[in-house]
């Protein structure tokens, strides 16, 4: 029997040790004619699923194992012979990992279970027999002595000693390679990773580096030179014994979700029927009834009841705690989910053509995927509920494998090659933020590097190799895996960086491959805001709205959206969205779904926005590439916008099976990093050409598929988001005061600062009242005001540096009795110096102590009262001779302490000066004809350089009437870099462009007018 199986091999999931991916390892092992390959990453199974995939691709058997060092004990390679062995291994790793902080492990002798049935062990001994007895007892008949020869100082001597040891202990010996890389060519990268691991430059890491590059998958002849044949042959015996395959793992849903006496099927039906009666109290409509029956039968057929029941259980609990939530993702927008309250999107009412089957397919042997968004501030409660309900043994978060992007890779490599920190930073800056390519020669030259310098070339080559390597495991924000058995029997569980969290070693792609159930518990700030808004309205008007009860398809709301009057609204508030709204003029819910999805890198890069726009506005005929594709593209006027459409296209036009189409989806998400779209291109092209599609159309479709890249936005997500967009728009339209109030109370969230939200609401004629300890709560609140809309009372939370506890004590003390003077306030609300000063400076004591100067003087003079003198009137002092704050001072202090002002906008004060400079206001701009030369000025509130727009920066200026959109082309920005980047108050000379009702000033010249702001006050201070 000849041949060899490598039984000790690390992949790059042994972070900073293994210098090759499982794919590379398996491909080389297959080329060299190995009989099997074990992937034995150090105390981890995080790379196992990828190795499994690579093994299937290469047609080379995988042995699952792990290398571990027992504390004060031997170094072992453990291999899973059978499923029981795999489970034991997973549990061992869990024990060793849970004992320490993230990233480390401690394996103790006592961790080994009494029975290690199904687990084989290779002992990597260092000439010392002391561990032999217990190892032999533990792994009776399943223990080998591994001999690793790497052309070291004295291989012959080592081999002799090891064979003696094997004989002395009566153990079979075998050869293994201690492989760290697939081929010798990775030696430099491996050295470099070692240096990174030890935080040393390579040149100083000599003591840790391997003396040569022998730790790769060696050719059989090379091995035969080193090892006696029987040591090589022995590896095959192990390879034959190890029959475990990852596919043998079985997952069971948790039992709790089905009460006794019910089957999963009957219980799901019962819950859906109850839900349907509650959703449709006047009787379930026929359309809904048939959908329910259809969906339930599909669920039963695929045996996904428990999945729906599990999600339902989480959502039910959240609703009981009054936590707002909304499901999205495949399967979420079904009638069943609507009945189960997993989604608020009524599938019978939306008029969309979304079909449940598209999200849950018979052919795709993969569990459904439902993400649930919860209120941002209360998601932690939901997470803790899940841990409570299923126990830490059975519920854990999924991992996220953090991989090297270009910037991180170049940073680590450059550091390891000894570049000084400033240059390391400069190099990292040469990479785009999420780029996966080493910086280009031009970019480097621009930054002052010589791309031909040998050191820099070394950095770039190694960077290229390191990019895409996993770097560490991190926790998924909310992806839960829940199972019936302890999870550690399925996959090792380790501690997360965050206290009280445990994470499994697999990420969501791994789970998908193995068909494990996952629920994403995500968080959304807008849900918090909506909840607050509903509460505010109920308190003020007595009406309780819910996401489902808001009037649908309200024309006033759509009219507002079409005016781009959407500051604060979910998803369609960004400048790019606002520019598009008057062009698309959404009129129905499905228009909103498109609106949400269209302003994204995918459609923008795929150049789908403008064709859609033209077709919608009737300036381009709607046509379809073929009759058979009409149903697919009808709803988007023949333009592919959604991921689902591309998949459907593949199924219909290129005869993909649904399973293959799903693989296409996966490839779309991953091609940037891993490539692998090429065979899809060939397949799509050949098959579509056969069916008579135009080559140009095929080419365009493929470009669009690439454009989707990592950004592909599925229709199902867009629909769920659009529901929140509609709800927030409706509230902004009909309850603007409550909506603004809720937004500010939920801040930070969204694009706009509280200042911008308040200015917006004031432009809508809603009264905003100042912070005042006599009336303000911690939160902003509603007070009776105008005829329809209440006034907004600014909350104490607006005061910079104010602590919530102080504010809450003020609320409590005020409820008992109104404050008679400042001393009364301070003593009863127990305010320390910091709190009083904040209140005085913010002007919140106006009603008790007069202007800011007086208030600050007064609070400074209040001394802690001794119990003996309690209740005495304050010490009488002569009234101080303090000047009143000037207009400009008030303005500056407003911005400094509250971040906003209720007085005139700073530009009101400067308007006269600006007029003499011939600067127009945003209001005047509305009446100017296009292509005219104009000058405008405003506070710079935004500078955005979208990745999708080459070289353009969108600058937003704010004046007393609103916003001005400015486009600054790269040459202008470069020429006037300093003014461009540093102005607070900026003047633009340029010309006005109008397209579809959107006005842009195209900048020709920039002037810094910030000095005018300083002139408002003797002190110069930052405005924002």
């Amino acid at each position, binding site marked *: 029997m000849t041949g060899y199986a490598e039984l000790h091999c690390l992949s790059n999931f042994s972070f900073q040790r293994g210098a090759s991916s499982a794919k590379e390892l398996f491909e080389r092992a297959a080329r060299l004619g190995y009989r099997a390959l074990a992937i034995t990453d150090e105390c981890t199974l995080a790379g196992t699923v990828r190795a499994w995939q690579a093994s299937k691709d290469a047609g080379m058997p995988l042995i699952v194992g792990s290398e571990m060092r027992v504390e004060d004990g031997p170094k072992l390679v453990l291999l899973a012979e059978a499923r029981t062995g795999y489970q034991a291994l997973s549990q061992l790793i869990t024990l060793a990992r849970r004992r320490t902080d993230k990233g480390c492990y401690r394996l103790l002798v006592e961790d080994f279970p009494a029975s290690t049935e199904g687990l084989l062990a290779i002992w990597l001994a260092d000439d010392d027999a002391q561990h032999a007895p217990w190892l032999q007892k533990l792994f009776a008949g399943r223990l080998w002595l591994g001999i690793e020869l790497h052309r070291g100082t004295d291989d012959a001597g080592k081999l002799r000693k090891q064979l003696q040891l094997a004989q002395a202990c009566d153990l079979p010996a075998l050869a293994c390679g201690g492989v760290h890389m697939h081929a010798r060519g990775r030696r430099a990268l491996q050295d470099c990773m070692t240096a990174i691991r030890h935080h040393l430059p390579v040149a100083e890491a000599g003591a840790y580096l391997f003396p040569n590059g022998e730790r790769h998958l060696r050719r059989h002849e090379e091995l035969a030179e080193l090892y006696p044949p029987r040591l090589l042959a022995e590896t095959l015996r192990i390879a034959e014994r190890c029959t475990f395959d990852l596919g043998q793992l079985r997952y069971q849903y948790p039992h709790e979700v089905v009460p006794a006496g019910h089957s999963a099927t009957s219980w799901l039906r019962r819950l859906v029927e109850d839900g349907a009666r509650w959703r449709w109290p006047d009787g379930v409509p026929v359309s809904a009834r048939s959908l329910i029956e259809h969906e339930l039968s599909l669920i039963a057929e695929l045996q996904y009841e428990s999945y729906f029941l599990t999600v339902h259980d989480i959502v039910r609990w959240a609703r009981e705690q009054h936590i707002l939530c909304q499901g999205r993702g495949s399967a979420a927008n079904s009638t069943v989910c609507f009945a189960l309250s997993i989604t608020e999107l009524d599938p019978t009412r939306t008029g969309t053509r979304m079909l449940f089957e598209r999200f849950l397919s018979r052919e795709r042997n993969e569990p459904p995927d439902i993400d649930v968004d919860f209120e941002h501030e209360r998601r932690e409660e939901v997470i803790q509920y899940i841990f409570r309900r299923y126990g830490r043994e059975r519920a854990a978060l999924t991992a996220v494998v953090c991989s090297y992007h270009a910037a991180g890779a170049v940073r680590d490599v450059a550091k390891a090659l000894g570049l000084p920190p400033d240059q390391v930073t400069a190099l990292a800056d040469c990479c785009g933020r999420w780029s996966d390519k080493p910086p280009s020669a031009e970019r480097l030259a621009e930054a002052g590097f010589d791309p031909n310098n040998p050191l820099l070339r070394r950095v770039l080559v190694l960077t290229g190799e390191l990019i895409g390597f996993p770097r560490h495991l991190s926790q998924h924000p909310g992806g839960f895996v829940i199972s019936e058995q302890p999870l550690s029997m399925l996959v090792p569980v380790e501690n997360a960086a965050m206290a009280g969290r445990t994470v499994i070693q697999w990420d969501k792609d791994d789970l998908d491959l193995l068909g494990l159930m996952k629920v994403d518990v995500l968080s959304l700030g807008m849900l918090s805001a909506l909840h607050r808004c509903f509460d505010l309205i109920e308190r003020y008007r007595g009406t309780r709205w819910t996401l489902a009860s808001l009037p649908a398809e309200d024309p006033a709301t759509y009219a507002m959206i079409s005016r781009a009057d959407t500051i604060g609204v979910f998803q369609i508030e960004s400048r790019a969205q606002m520019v598009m709204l008057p062009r698309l003029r959404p009129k129905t819910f499905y228009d909103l779904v498109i609106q949400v999805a269209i302003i994204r890198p995918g459609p923008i890069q795929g150049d789908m926005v403008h064709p859609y726009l033209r077709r919608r506005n009737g300036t381009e005929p709607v046509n379809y590439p073929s009759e058979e594709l009409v149903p697919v593209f009808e709803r988007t006027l023949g333009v592919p916008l959604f991921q689902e459409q591309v998949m459907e296209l593949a199924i219909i036009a290129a005869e993909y099976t649904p399973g293959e189409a799903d693989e296409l989806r996966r490839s779309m998400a991953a091609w940037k990093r891993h490539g692998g779209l090429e065979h899809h291109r060939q397949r799509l092209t050949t098959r579509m050409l056969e069916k008579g599609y135009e080559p140009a159309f095929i080419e365009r479709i493929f470009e669009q598929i690439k454009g989707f890249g990592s950004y592909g936005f599925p229709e199902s997500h867009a629909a769920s988001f659009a529901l929140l967009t509609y709800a927030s728009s409706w509230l902004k339209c009909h309850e603007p005061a409550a909506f603004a109030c809720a937004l500010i109370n939920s801040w930070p969230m969204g694009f706009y600062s509280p200042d911008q939200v308040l200015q917006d609401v004031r432009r809508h004629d809603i009264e905003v009242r100042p912070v005042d300890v006599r009336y303000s709560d911690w939160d902003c609140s509603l007070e009776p005001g105008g005829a329809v809309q209440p006034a907004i009372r600014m909350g104490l939370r607006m005061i910079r540096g104010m602590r919530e506890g102080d504010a809450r004590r003020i609320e409590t003390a005020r409820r008992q009795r109104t404050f008679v003077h400042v001393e009364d306030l301070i003593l009863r609300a127990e305010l320390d110096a910091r709190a009083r000063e904040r209140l005085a400076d913010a002007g919140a004591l106006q009603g008790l102590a007069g202007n800011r100067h007086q208030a*600050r003087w007064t609070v400074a003079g209040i001394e802690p009262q001794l119990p003996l003198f309690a209740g005495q009137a304050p010490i009488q002092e002569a009234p101080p001779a303090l000047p009143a704050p000037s207009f400009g001072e008030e303005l500056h202090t407003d911005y400094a302490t509250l971040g906003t002002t209720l007085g005139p906008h700073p530009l009101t004060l400067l308007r006269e000066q600006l007029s003499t400079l011939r600067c127009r206001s945003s209001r005047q701009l509305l009446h100017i004809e296009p292509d005219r030369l104009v000058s405008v000025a405003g506070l710079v509130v935004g500078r955005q350089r979208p990745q999708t727009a080459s070289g353009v920066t969108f600058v937003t200026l704010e004046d007393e009437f609103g916003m001005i959109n400015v486009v600054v082309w790269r040459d202008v920005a470069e020429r006037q870099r300093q003014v461009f980047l540093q102005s607070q108050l900026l003047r633009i000379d340029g010309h006005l462009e109008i397209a579809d009702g959107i006005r842009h000033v195209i900048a020709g010249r920039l002037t810094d007018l910030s000095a005018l702001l300083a002139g408002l006050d003797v002190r110069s201070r930052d405005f924002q």
Partner: protein
Amino acid sequence: MLWACILFPQLAMDGVLRHRADADSPLALLAGPAQRRVLQAVNPAARAIGLRPGQSLIAAQALSQDFATADYNPVEIEHWQQLLAACAYGFSSQVSLHYPRCLLMEVHSCLSLFGPWPRFEARLREELSALGFRHRITVAPNPAAARILANVHNGLVITDADALRQALDRLPVQHLGFSREAATAFSRMGLRNLARILAQPRDSLSRRFPAEVLVQLDRLLGIRPLALDFHRPPDVFEQRIELNFDVKSHQALLFPLRRLTADLAAYLAGRDSGVQRFVLHLEHRAMADSQVQVGLLRAERDASMLFELTRDRLEQLQLPAPVLAVRLAARDLPRFAPERRQLFDERPQQSLPWEQLRERLRARLGDEAVHGLSACADHRPERAWSTQSSIPQPISPLRPGWLLAQPQPLREASLHILAGPERIESGWWDGDDVRRDYYVIQTRSGQRGWAFRELGSQGPLMLHGWFA
């Protein structure tokens, strides 16, 4: 008493600029951790292109790539402060570094020596400008006031209390030397200058502000004195002898050298210290000094030993040009601890102790010729030895004791290979990648050697070392 305050608004920057020829091109001093470098100071040229102190380096680079950077070095700053204090000490014996980045000096008592203030001031400014430090000078009846006035004035001279009060009254509260919190509190109360503050009743102020605020007010008005630590000149020995003629031979330098070393020894004895390191400067016309560095293993102060050692070193030096002056500078002056000798010294008469032998060898042969041997963590044999490293590491027994400086081909036919190959592949990072298979060989004569063959090469074995 009359106090001058000399404020150096750009101390760190000027300290760096005085070494640079291109003082007018943009320069920024950087501070902060490597991940977040921040501009600490900028020169006017840098200011003109938009750089500001406090900016992050990244933000600055976004503005311009055309500026030089240097480190902001607090140690340097301390050094310059000492230098400036020493300079001021030439004018007044009461010089204080009480406030950072400025000098306080009592000037009233010096007026008789240096003439009326304007002349005195002109001389001071001339000297400071020559040193390359921008400065602002104010004079006031008390040091605290002089310091505060220097924040906004330059050249202001106030000699009486009334004028002082007038000048101080108008100063903004941020410049009065209060803590940031107190200054903020005052300005938030609308008390934006000293006049407004002093208009408030004192007990109202004392109820609202910590005691330091009132102390500072009193100091400014001269009601309460400021306790100052006065500068003492540093403890260094520096002496220069100008020669009467151009000296071209070593011989002629020995006499002044003997005097300098004798003076040094006397000085050391006087302050009970020794010297561990000193420099003999030989000054030439129109070129940099030649320097003779003398380092000792331990502090010494014996005149003849110092002279002998210096002479040994001096004699090795080629004089590049005639010498005009010699200067001896000693900064490292640790305490002297005489060696205890046993009453009956057992050492043979002629032998030298190891340390002295080593020093003698180093002095005679040069520092480069005598060094220790230690192992270095590098797999490449030629780099595994280091002559500088001071931390000795064990050298592997399987490595030869004598490594050849240059490997040489082994032409001997009847070699016997004892062990190997041991493969060494390392060093790619410095462009000197080594890929070799090493063998232990035995020659016909029984010598054991260490030889290698480049990986993939068919050539002869290269001998790299001999085993002992």
